C-alpha cells in the first residue's frame, strides 16, 4: 500500500451569494466601513486590469468573483508593504470586473529562467465546483511571452493567446482587458498545479 496522507477537504461551489462573505459591500451589507480589495497599492507603475467571464452560451457570468495574486514591481512575492493579493466581484448587471494594481516585475521560473510578467487569477462562481486557475499576461512583452516557460507548456500554441490581455487605447493609466471564456471554441486555458 502506498503511503497515505490526510485527504484534502473537498471543494464546493462558492454559490450565488459568495459576496456576503467575501465582498460584503457588493452583497448590500452595510457594515460601516468600505472595503476595496480590488485596489492594490504599492511602488511601481499603476495599471488597470479589467475583464468579464463568459459562459458556454456566450453570456457574462454576472456573479463571478475573481482573485488576483502577483509579484511586486521588483518581481518579489510577500515583500515590503505590497500585499500582492486582490479580490473583485463582477457587476451584477454586466459581469464586468476590474482591478487597479501595479505592473508586476519579472519572476523566475523554477529553474531560474525568467517568466513573462503576469498576474495569477482565480475564478469562483455559482456553477463552478472548484475554482479555476488562470493567468493574465501583457501583450507588449512580446519576446518574454515567446520564451515564457508556462506559456510554452501549453501544447497547442493557438491556445496561448487566451491568456494575453488586450491593451486599451486612450485610458488614463495603462489598461488591460482579458475576456475569460469558461467553455467553447476560444476557451481560456486553466491550470492545474
Amino acid at each position, binding site marked *: 500500500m502506498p503511503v497515505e*496522507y*490526510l*485527504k*484534502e*477537504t*473537498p*471543494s*464546493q*461551489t462558492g454559490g450565488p451569494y*459568495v459576496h*456576503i*462573505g467575501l465582498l*460584503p459591500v457588493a*452583497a*448590500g*451589507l452595510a*457594515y*460601516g*466601513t*468600505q*472595503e*476595496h*480589495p480590488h485596489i*492594490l497599492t504599492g511602488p511601481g507603475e499603476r495599471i488597470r486590469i479589467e475583464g468579464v467571464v463568459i*459562459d*458556454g*452560451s456566450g453570456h457574462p*457570468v454576472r456573479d463571478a468573483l475573481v482573485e488576483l495574486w*502577483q*509579484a511586486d514591481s521588483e518581481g*518579489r512575492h*510577500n515583500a515590503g*508593504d*505590497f*500585499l500582492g493579493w486582490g479580490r473583485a466581484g463582477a457587476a*451584477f448587471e454586466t459581469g464586468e470586473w476590474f482591478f487597479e494594481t501595479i505592473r508586476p516585475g519579472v*519572476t*523566475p*521560473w*523554477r*529553474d531560474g529562467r525568467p517568466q513573462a510578467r503576469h498576474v*495569477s487569477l482565480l475564478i*469562483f462562481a455559482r*456553477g*463552478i*465546483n*472548484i475554482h479555476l486557475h488562470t493567468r493574465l499576461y501583457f501583450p507588449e512583452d512580446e519576446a518574454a511571452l515567446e520564451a515564457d516557460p508556462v506559456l510554452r*507548456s*501549453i501544447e497547442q500554441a493557438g*491556445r496561448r493567446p487566451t491568456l494575453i490581455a488586450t491593451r486599451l487605447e486612450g485610458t488614463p493609466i495603462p489598461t488591460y482587458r482579458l475576456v475569460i471564456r*469558461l*467553455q*467553447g471554441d476560444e*476557451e*481560456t*486555458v*486553466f*491550470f*492545474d*498545479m
Partner: protein
Amino acid sequence: MSRLIDVTRPGLARPGPEPAELPRGDIMRRDRGAHPPAFTPGYKTSVLRSPRRALVSLEPGPGENTGPVFRASLLGPLENDLIRNYARDGEAIGERIIVHGKVLDECGRPVPHTLLEVWQANAGGRYRHVNDTYLAALDPNFGGCGRCMTDAEGNYFFRTIRPGPYPWRNNGSDWRPAHIHFSLFGEAFAQRLVSQLYFEGDPLIPLCPILGTLPDAAARERLVARLDMGQSVPFDALAYRFDIVLRGRRQTFFENKPEGH
C-alpha cells in the same frame, strides 16, 4: 462595526519574511479525484460554466508556492461572532452554535495564522444579499458573514446561528441542506480552498445535487461537521467540530535541475 477594513491600506501586509524564512518545497499535487469534477449536470449551472478542455498541468512556481499574508490586526473583536457582529437591537434569532476545529495540511501539520472567512443564511434560510428573494424573513440582527484566523496551532472557532435549509431553482423542489460556506488561504495560492460545511444527521444531505457533485461518499463525509457536546456551553450554545485539510507541502530532497523542464 469593524468587520470591514481596507486591506489595501499600506502597512496591512505583514512585512515580508526574508526569503530564507519562506516555507520551501512544492505544494503537493491536488488529488482532483477527491474533488467534484467541473461538469456535473445534476447541478444545472455547472453545465455552461465548466471547461470542456483538460486543465493544463503545471509545476508550481514561486507564484503558486506563495500566497497573501494577512495580519491578525485585520480582524475586529466581533468578527468571529455572527450572533453579535450585525446586532442592531438584540441578538440574532435561532439555534446558537459554536463551530470550531483545526486546519491541517495533508501531512498533518497545523496551518497557523491563516484567514478563514465564512458566510451563511439565517435561521430561516434567508441570505442577506441583494439577489436573494426567498420569502423567509431577514433577521434584523443577523448579517451572516464572519472571519477568524487560526492560532499558532491551527485552531479556529466562531459563534453563529445554525442556518436553515432553503429552496433553490435547480430541479424545482431542491432544497439545500443547512450549510455554512467557508474560504481559506493557507500559506500558498495553490492551497486556496472554498467549500461548504454541513451538519451531522441532516436528512437533506443525501438529496443535495451540490453535495452530489462529489464523487464518493467518503468525500461527502469530510464536509460534515460533528456534534461536539464536549465543547457546548451549557444553557447557551451547542458546538460542532469541523477540521479542514489543505494541500500539503513536500520536502525538497533535491534542488531543481535546469534541464528538468
